[in-house]
């Protein structure tokens, strides 16, 4: 006997299978597929199958169409023996990869996107561990919205600019893609970066996230003993239009001061702030304020400017990442490559919808917030009930754990 969950997953798998049957050309394995490790989660077995290798992109596609995985992955690394156990693979190089995830960004809505539901009785109170009616364990559901996805996209754009403008990556060597759920993946294939080891990647991550940044070394006010007037040496003072962190920090500091409200933590400098606000035109006069003021201001500027990438993903030279052009098993959306010039206007909640839009399916929805997907608006469903939805939307709710396919 199969329960409602199995029935629902069997349905989703059928939909995935038909998609891959008709569109397997969309699956896009990375360069040199023969040197990669592949892996996937299957619908049936709750474990990862790893250490697979294929001779060509065609073979990869055929395998995906045959297996119909819930999630499909490929290694960032190039190996001599991709299917050997990890210690014997013979690491040669690895793409430089980045993961930008909506919930690592400072967007206020992220905290409101966690729901607890009972699959039968619907929405539960915050913090509930079990359903008060039937005692089933609460299921935690992560949601995303336009706001947090746009924030992730904006962060992606910033990263691309820094990689190209400062770190020596060519635009043509970059691949940007939507993950199919809540973020973006950025892959640099530049030959000089492929051979960076773990330590070098760690340093590169530090550059992007401003970990270990020491303002004095960048020609910004710094402390020795942390008292008195700031000291500036080593470098010429930063200019407004300067590339790199010197420019970004100084521009941000300036705009913090220009904003009407006195920034938190700087209340006691309100007088000085007014003065600087008016006097600062070309170059700030560092001597008008004590070091404590600058330190706090710059800390805030650095905090706001630092990129929010997942440091673990970038430093892990054996990482598997989602295979472009496959369906994400948490949403049914396509993990889709995005040409750089399209990034600014990219709308993942529309352009990554690839499952059938016309055909409908009856689902029992436990709970659903109002949402927009595939160009349609869906109202909130606050009490459990049965509805007809386009297949892509039904699959979306099923994979989020909010709905079940009805018999």
């Amino acid at each position, binding site marked *: 006997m199969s329960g409602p969950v199995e029935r629902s997953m069997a349905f989703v798998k059928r939909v995935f299978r038909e998609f891959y049957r008709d569109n397997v050309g969309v699956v896009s394995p990375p360069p040199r597929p023969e040197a990669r490790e592949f892996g996937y989660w299957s619908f049936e077995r709750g474990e990862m199958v790893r250490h697979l290798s294929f001779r060509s992109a065609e073979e990869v596609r055929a395998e995906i169409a045959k297996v119909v995985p819930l999630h499909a992955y490929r290694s960032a690394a190039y190996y001599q023996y991709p299917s050997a156990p990890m210690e014997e693979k013979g690491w040669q190089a690895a793409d430089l990869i980045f993961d930008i995830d909506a919930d690592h960004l400072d967007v206020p809505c992220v905290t409101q996107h966690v729901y607890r539901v009972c699959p039968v009785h619907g929405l539960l109170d915050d913090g509930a561990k079990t359903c008060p009616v039937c005692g089933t364990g609460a299921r935690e559901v992560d949601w995303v919205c336009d706001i947090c996805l746009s924030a992730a996209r904006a962060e992606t754009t910033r990263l691309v600019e820094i990689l190209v403008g400062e770190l020596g990556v060519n635009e043509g060597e970059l691949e940007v893609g939507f993950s199919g759920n809540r973020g973006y993946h950025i892959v640099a294939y*530049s030959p000089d970066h492929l051979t960076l080891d773990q330590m*070098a990647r760690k340093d590169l991550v530090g550059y992007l996230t401003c970990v270990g940044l020491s303002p004095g070394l960048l020609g910004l006010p710094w402390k020795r003993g942390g008292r008195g007037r700031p000291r500036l040496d080593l470098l010429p003072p930063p200019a407004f239009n300067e590339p790199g962190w*010197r420019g970004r920090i100084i521009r941000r500091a300036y705009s913090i001061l220009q904003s009407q409200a006195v920034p938190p933590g700087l209340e006691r400098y309100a007088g000085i702030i007014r003065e600087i606000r008016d006097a600062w035109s070309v170059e700030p006069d560092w001597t008008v304020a004590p070091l404590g003021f600058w330190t706090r201001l710059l800390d805030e500027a650095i905090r706001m400017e630092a990129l929010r990438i997942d440091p673990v993903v970038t430093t892990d030279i054996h990482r598997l990442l989602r295979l472009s052009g496959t369906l994400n098993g948490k949403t049914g959306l396509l993990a889709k490559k995005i040409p750089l010039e399209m990034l600014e206007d990219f709308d993942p909640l529309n352009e990554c919808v690839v499952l059938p839009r016309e055909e409908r399916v009856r689902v029992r929805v436990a709970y659903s917030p109002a949402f927009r997907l595939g160009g349609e608006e869906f109202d909130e469903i606050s009490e459990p009930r049965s509805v007809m939805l386009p297949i892509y939307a039904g699959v979306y709710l099923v994979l989020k754990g909010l709905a079940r396919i009805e018999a």
Partner: protein
Amino acid sequence: MSMLRSERMLAKYPFIAAARDYLSRRGIALDELGSGRFGRDVERAYERVVEALKMGEDAEIGLYPDEEVEVLSFAIALLFVASIGDGWLARRWALAESLRCGRFLEEEEPEIVAELLRAELGIKVEPSPPGESGLGAYKVWAPHYLTLTSRIDSLEWKLVNRVVRGGWVYVTPKELARIAVEAIQKRILSRYEDARGTPLPDSLTAVAKRIREMLAEKRSFEVEAGQVSEEYWPPCMAKIKKELLAGLSVGHFANFALAAFMLTAGYTQEQVIAMYSQRSDFNEKIARYQTEHIAGQKGSRVKYTPPSCSTMKTHGLCVEEGRLCPGIKNPIQYYRREARRAAQRKKIEGRNDEEEKRDSGGGFLATST
């Protein structure tokens, strides 16, 4: 390229391509090397390796007056090290040789250093345009900079504290020389990898044997380091240890953190020194002094506690941002918690067993402070 061709240049920088073919260009066959004709060269080669082995970072290999001997002895030294095939010795020797080159580089015109990096070491370097020389007279291609400096453990080398523009990192001539030392060390090590396991001519095996014996004496610590149990260790410390054992150079801060952690957890100073001995720049006297310092016996009598998780994070030493250690604020807390849990498990399992009881009461728990 031409300015690197002189005999004197080859003597100072014997790793460069022109010196590489020295043996073959002169038509010297490998098994001739043991003959009396090359006595001075072999002796000098032996000296190079032994000085490195004994002194590590402080080795004074110097510059032998006869340039031909200097070039040939480097090639023979490489042969010795490659035939012995010990990674630690190789790293220590490469370190000493690269520091030797560094001393000469400091005296060179910056343009020679740049040329050496470009032509011999495959590093992209350019002089800064006049308008930008205030940021550093030279610029190094960012990925090359990262590869060569990421193991230098000091804030001013971190990329985030550098001026970086259009793929280039700005550096001073002095910094350029330092980068060259790193690149030379890498180059010598890759030459070692290529030549590894090359059999020595019979006539040289006696000399190699002497080196091997000296090495064994120096390396008596190694066994001990491998034996330090990492049961209950937090992921960050286990990682540092693993890297040390693999012969990777870990930063000074990581060394300090590991030592402070081990000492607080109750490991002996000998065990800690054994860990340090994995570094290619190991100096027993200094290691002992530092360890005693951390343990609180020397100098200020301040006993260092291991750095907190947030400090570990700042230095990029925390593993997976602490996802593996929920609720832990300090690595030592992880260790104590795991040890306590293990003790409780033991207690439950061996409730009637006298010996078990004694075990869980003593050992690691007794050492926590």
